[in-house]
């Protein structure tokens, strides 16, 4: 009986901690919600999208109804570079379906972020993904409600509505998670 109670308590504790954890990792607009407009500065990447490096614009407005993978990242590292490489591949593959992707770097110092943008493009070898720094670069656009404790937020959206949302710690961005993001990106085309 005691063992049963212990087991039950453990199961309850696990369920509780899981639910708390899933609440904690929410970041940005959720599935079904609209993606708002915000201004960014293009810093590197995608040389064929008609946007010059240093130009300020609203990518959300430019891309409109197109299927998009938008990434918001605080720590540009090798894992993020790996994600960019994979996104580059999926965007190139679905060029005829107008898929697009851009990575927003977040942090306090815009100049540092701009430097990291160049490194990220070089490291990833991405040619179809733009790297930008939002005007609100400290924590991203205010109405996006990005979780300040989340390192990487990935929004997969089509026709301006979120179809998949990933809120990740930098260390979570591994091969299996990247594969899931790619799958979400391709699934939104169906």
């Amino acid at each position, binding site marked *: 009986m005691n063992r049963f109670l212990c087991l039950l308590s453990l199961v309850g504790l696990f369920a509780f901690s899981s639910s708390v954890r899933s609440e904690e990792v929410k970041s940005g607009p959720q599935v079904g919600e609209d993606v708002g*407009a915000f*201004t960014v500065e293009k810093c590197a990447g995608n040389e064929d999208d*008609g946007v010059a490096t240093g*130009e300020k614009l609203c990518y959300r*407005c*430019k891309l*409109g*109804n*197109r299927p998009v993978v938008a990434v918001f990242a605080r720590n540009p590292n090798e894992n993020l570079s790996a994600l960019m490489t994979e996104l580059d591949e999926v965007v190139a593959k679905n060029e005829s*379906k107008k898929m697009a992707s851009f990575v927003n770097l977040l942090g306090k110092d815009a100049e540092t972020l701009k430097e990291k943008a160049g490194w990220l493009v070089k490291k990833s070898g991405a040619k179809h993904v733009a790297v930008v720094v939002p005007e609100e670069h400290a924590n991203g656009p205010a109405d996006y409600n990005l979780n300040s404790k989340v390192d990487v937020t990935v929004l997969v959206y089509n026709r301006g509505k979120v179809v998949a949302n990933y809120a990740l710690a930098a260390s979570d961005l591994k091969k299996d998670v990247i594969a899931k993001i790619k799958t979400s990106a391709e699934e939104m085309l169906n």
Partner: protein
Amino acid sequence: MRNSLHQLICLTSIIAGGILGCAPSISPKSSPLRTAESADQSNSDGPVVSQPKVAPAKVTLVEMDFAQFQDFLKSKHGKIVVVDMWATWCPPCVKGFPNLVALRKKYSENDIACVSLSLDHQGIDPLIEVAKSVREFLEKQQAEFDNILATEESDEILKKFGTASIPVVDVYGRDGKLVQRFDDSSGKHFDYQEVDQLVHKLLTLP
């Protein structure tokens, strides 16, 4: 016995009250007439009388490529021309669109021409479907001026206009030359009041 009788009265009152409460309320102010619009959705047998309607907006939508649009602009020489590049999928463009309608109402058509240039076509949906959604939006806005739908994909048009993204408002002088472009390239969203001020200034020029 008295208790039973009392209970029976209470029960009857509750049931009667429930029935009355569920029945459709009849207000002395409610009209037995139906509008033509509501008649389709109702099974009522009352006579159908059309309510006076607001005159439908005279909204037109013309499809043009970039070259045709340049010719169209030339046809407006002699007027100040305000071109609002927008799309139904661009949130700030949709928010700002009523300002173009207000501008058109504020000034004489003899002096300024308000033009909306929709960049909705992205090569995703057939142009006919795009035109339908654009027209619906324009009708809601009562956009009674020249409305153009670009037939080339938005990215191509943006490149030809030398800009990265909408919203964009171009103001041309009476000589047909671009006086000023309003866009978000400074990092801040432009204010339509600035467009109005420029138009006012141009109107006062000899």
